[in-house]
């Protein structure tokens, strides 16, 4: 009957003083009654009281037994254990801080990483995610799919043609629903705000029903919205509703302007669902039927273009294999149909390959890009796991050293009559206190660092808010706590089993040697992992340095850049718009000049074209920029021959181009081919001849890591332009005048969304976001690892010196010099360091290959970097062991020999 006992325990534990009081009263009553009875039998009152006391026995002893009867003794012992542990912690602040910091870093950092991992790999928050499937196909260069608008690489495509979707929807018997969707970034003006680029999704009618997701307010979209004459309606995300519309409860029925078209908001999605793309939350969901009206570039194209992503939900009992078998032939039919409808300029028209359809599990959403995020997270995970390992090893080491320092204390307590279990429980309490403090600090760290993926700007990373994963936290806290308990209590248990007497006479040398060995093995592991982290940090630091040394060929300072997207339907209106835009920006005080290009200079995208020099044979691929005339002046790219572009190079004038020196050499085979002609080639068609009017110095195009590439510049009046990047050369700090530039753009057109406003320096930094982020992470990890190793080394050396105090004293007494003693103490730890470093070399070789794709101008196994890492490690090891060694060498032999 456990309940009355628990109730009784709680009652007495909670009302402790009342219980003590009652107990005293009760015993007092007994003694008085007994004395009264004895007086009745003829004793004097004094003698009666004395006799009553004698008969009763020790009041305190029975009080204690009474407490024990009520289960309160454990509580008392726990209290005293805790008090004792706390005193121990305060006495040894350094040890406690090191242990708690180790635990905090280990649990906190790892929980944060686990949680971010989980944000990538967790199931969609929809009903029965295991029933979802996502379609993709594998293609080769020979596959009969040429025109696509979507994710299509690494031989895997997730984009399908409109007829494919229609066929799947019509013919499937294994799927209860099939739906298609396509992401888009749309310019939205809501509630009179600035035009803003909003991540949106065009979806077919069954999207919400198929996912089984409902609306928080209003309704979701349904097949009714798919009909061509349906009114334009949209569903907004909870986040967008809160952020832009202030959580307006009457939002349903209101209108927002999307790409200048009014769209009625019919619903708000549930807070936890922001679309099927986990790494790209969607704020606005619209019907696929609206894609064309809202100007989606692929909408309304026929059978030839592959642009829709397709998902489905398996009917009960159906399998993915059955689905594949059933839909394969209609997929192939679509491929043949799309190939027949291919454009006249399709390259490599002799293809016959049939891509292979696949039906994958879709519970985690459709995104193939997650593969990249996973690689990033794997690297992060490896680094953090190394830190956790170092942390645990360090903790173990600290506890081992402490345990052997306490053998003496344990022996005394055993000799004084403490039971073994009592001593072990005491040590356990201490370990648990440390584990608890470390776990608490780690949780704080995890909450603070859980959104660490946001520090990785410009890296493919899930940008959803990570949630702290309770399982991950439990796992890491458990792991660290187990370390604390095993290494905190294990040696103590062993100590209590031994006969205390010899340990009191002298610190049992054999046990000491064995313990020293465990410590040194642990030390070796730490050194190995630290060398690996140091090597990684070194390689990444060199990568960053190499990037900073790249000559970009233009002036990246005092340059403000942003994107604007414009209507594609009306080119003449766009020309005029660009002129007004640039004019308005150039009138802003502090602006030297403004220009625009189609591709950001050193940024996330590129454009290329194939050129054929007049009279030449060899076609060549070059990078392509469509720019305003003053582009070279604004970017400060020097002209080396001929002329730059100017306002006379109009749309009806002769076609002209400026090329860079690299293109001059590679395409024309001469340094200054001014006046020569070339054509651009698309499939089997060739453009009218274009005259080279000027040569400019080479400049960086997309990535800093690429050699400056051959680049072709043509005036925006002579090539189709949709959306541009505006570059503004400023007199001073670019961001200072950013608001004025924004105002100028708004005055020209309030519905023109201005996106990704930043300085050119920021934009360049983003392109190397990955190495930068990794460098920061590994540098921090290496610093932590080094610090922990340092603590471990110091602890081991100091322990070693203390353990051998008597030996050292004898040696000094026999005439050993100080340097001999230093060598003696340092040598033992240095053997462990050397062994660890050797293993670290191998680890560094393997680990650096993991980050090979991030490195620039430095090889993964770079000997200089590894040598530097080793040197740092050894220097730190020397420093850490020097202090205890020096202290040992200064020992007064007479004191040393009396030690213990």
């Amino acid at each position, binding site marked *: 009957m456990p309940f009355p006992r628990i109730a009784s325990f709680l009652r007495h534990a909670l009302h402790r003083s009342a219980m003590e009081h009652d107990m005293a009263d009760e015993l007092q*009553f007994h003694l008085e009654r007994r004395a009264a009875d004895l007086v009745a039998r003829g004793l004097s009152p004094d003698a009666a009281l004395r006799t009553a006391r004698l008969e009763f*026995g020790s009041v305190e002893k029975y009080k204690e037994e009474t407490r*024990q009867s009520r289960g309160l003794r454990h509580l008392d012992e726990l209290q005293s254990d805790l008090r004792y542990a706390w005193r121990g912690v305060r006495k040894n602040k350094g040890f406690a801080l090191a242990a708690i910091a180790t635990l905090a870093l280990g649990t906190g950092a790892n929980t944060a990483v686990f949680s971010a991992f989980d944000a990538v790999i967790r199931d969609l928050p929809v009903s029965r995610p295991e029933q979802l499937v996502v379609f993709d196909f594998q293609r080769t260069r020979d596959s009969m799919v040429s025109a696509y608008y979507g994710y299509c690489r690494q031989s895997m495509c997730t984009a399908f043609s409109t007829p494919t979707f229609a066929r799947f929807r019509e013919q499937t018997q294994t799927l209860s629903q099939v739906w298609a969707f396509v992401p888009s970034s749309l310019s939205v003006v809501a509630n009179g705000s600035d035009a803003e680029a909003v991540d949106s999704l065009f979806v077919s009618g069954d999207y919400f029903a198929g996912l089984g997701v409902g609306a928080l307010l209003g309704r979701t979209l349904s097949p009714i919205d798919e009909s061509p004459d349906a009114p334009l309606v949209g569903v907004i995300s909870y986040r967008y509703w809160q952020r832009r519309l202030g959580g307006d409860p009457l939002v349903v029925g209101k209108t927002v302007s999307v790409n200048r078209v009014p769209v009625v908001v019919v619903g708000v999605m549930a807070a936890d669902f922001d679309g099927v793309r986990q790494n790209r939350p969607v704020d606005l969901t619209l019907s696929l039927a609206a894609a064309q009206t809202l100007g989606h570039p692929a909408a309304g194209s026929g059978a030839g273009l592959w642009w829709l992503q397709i998902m489905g939900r398996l009917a009960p009992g159906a399998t993915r294999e059955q689905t594949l078998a059933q839909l394969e032939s209609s997929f192939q039919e679509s491929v043949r149909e799309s190939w027949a409808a291919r454009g006249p300029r399709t390259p490599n028209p002799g293809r016959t390959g049939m891509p292979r359809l696949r039906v994958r599990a879709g519970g985690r959403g459709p995104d193939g890009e997650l593969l990249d995020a996973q690689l990033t997270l794997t690297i992060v995970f490896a680094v953090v796991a190394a830190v956790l390992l170092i942390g645990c090893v360090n903790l173990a080491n600290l506890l081992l050293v402490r345990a052997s320092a306490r053998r003496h204390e344990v022996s005394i307590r055993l000799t004084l009559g403490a039971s073994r279990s009592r001593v072990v429980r005491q040590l356990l309490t201490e370990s648990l206190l440390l584990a608890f403090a470390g776990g608490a600090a780690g949780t704080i760290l995890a909450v603070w660092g859980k959104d660490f993926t946001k520090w990785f700007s410009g890296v493919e990373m899930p940008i959803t808010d990570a949630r702290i994963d309770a399982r991950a936290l439990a796992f890491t806290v458990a792991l660290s706590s187990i370390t604390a308990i095993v290494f905190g209590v294990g040696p103590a248990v062993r100590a209590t089993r031994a006969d205390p007497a010899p340990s009191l006479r002298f610190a049992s040398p054999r046990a000491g040697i064995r313990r020293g060995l465990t410590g040194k093995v642990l030390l070796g592991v730490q050194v190995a992992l630290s060398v690996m982290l140091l090597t990684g940090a070194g390689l990444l630091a060199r990568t960053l340095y190499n990037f900073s040394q790249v000559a970009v060929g233009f002036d990246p300072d005092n340059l403000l850049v942003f994107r604007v997207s414009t209507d594609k339907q009306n080119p003449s209106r766009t020309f005029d718009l660009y002129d007004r835009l640039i004019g308005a920006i150039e009138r802003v005080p502090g602006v030297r000049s403004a220009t625009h290009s189609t591709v950001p200079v050193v940024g996330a995208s590129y454009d290329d074209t194939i050129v054929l020099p007049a009279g030449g044979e060899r076609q060549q691929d070059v990078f392509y920029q469509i720019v305003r005339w003053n582009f070279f002046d604004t970017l400060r790219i020097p002209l080396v021959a001929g002329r730059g572009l100017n306002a006379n190079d109009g749309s009806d004038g002769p076609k002209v181009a400026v090329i860079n020196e690299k293109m001059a050499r590679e395409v024309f085979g001469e340094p200054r081919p001014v006046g020569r002609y070339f054509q651009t080639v698309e499939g089997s068609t060739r453009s009218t001849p274009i005259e080279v009017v000027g040569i400019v110095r080479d400049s960086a195009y997309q990535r800093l890591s690429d050699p400056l590439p051959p680049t072709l510049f043509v005036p925006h009046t002579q090539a189709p332009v949709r959306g541009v990047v505006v570059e503004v050369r400023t007199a001073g700090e670019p961001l200072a005048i950013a608001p004025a530039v924004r105002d100028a753009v708004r005055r020209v057109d309030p519905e023109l969304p201005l996106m990704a406003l930043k300085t050119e320096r920021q934009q360049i930094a983003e392109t190397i976001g990955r190495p930068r982020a990794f460098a920061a992470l590994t540098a921090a990890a290496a610093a932590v690892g080094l610090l922990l190793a340092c603590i471990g080394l110091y602890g081991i050396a100091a322990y070693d010196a203390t353990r051998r105090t008597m030996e050292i004293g004898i040696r000094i007494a026999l005439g050993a010099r100080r340097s001999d003693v230093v060598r003696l103490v340092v040598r033992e730890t240095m053997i462990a360091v050397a062994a660890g470093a050797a293993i670290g070399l191998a680890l560094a070789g393997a680990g650096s290959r993991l980050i090979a794709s991030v490195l620039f101008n430095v090889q993964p196994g770079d000997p200089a970097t590894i040598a530097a890492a080793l040197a740092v490690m050894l220097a730190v090891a020397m420093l850490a062991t020097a202090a205890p060694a020096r202290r040992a060498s200064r020992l007064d032999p007479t004191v040393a020999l009396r030690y213990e």
Partner: protein
Amino acid sequence: MPPQAELLPGTLDLLILKALSLGEEHGYGVLLRIERITGGALLVEQGALYPALARLEHQGLLHAEWATSDNNRRARFYALTAAGRKRLKAETERWELAAHALNTALRAQEA
């Protein structure tokens, strides 16, 4: 004074339960009652009574309450709970069985 015997281990609890089955009583009263019902033949260590009472209360076999005693002093009175009554019955049966077995065994003679 009649000859006194040491308590067998475990019998104190049984005696307390038996004593209290005759009516609620405070600690000292329980002691006197045990002396009376055993005819003074069993020696109960006075102090040991209280840990035993606390243990039985902790197990939910007794209920304790402060009340005024016959001489107008505040005293802690114990009474059997339903569980205590059940336990007393079970323990009594067990005891009788064991005592009978032991008696039989001790009287046994070589056949």
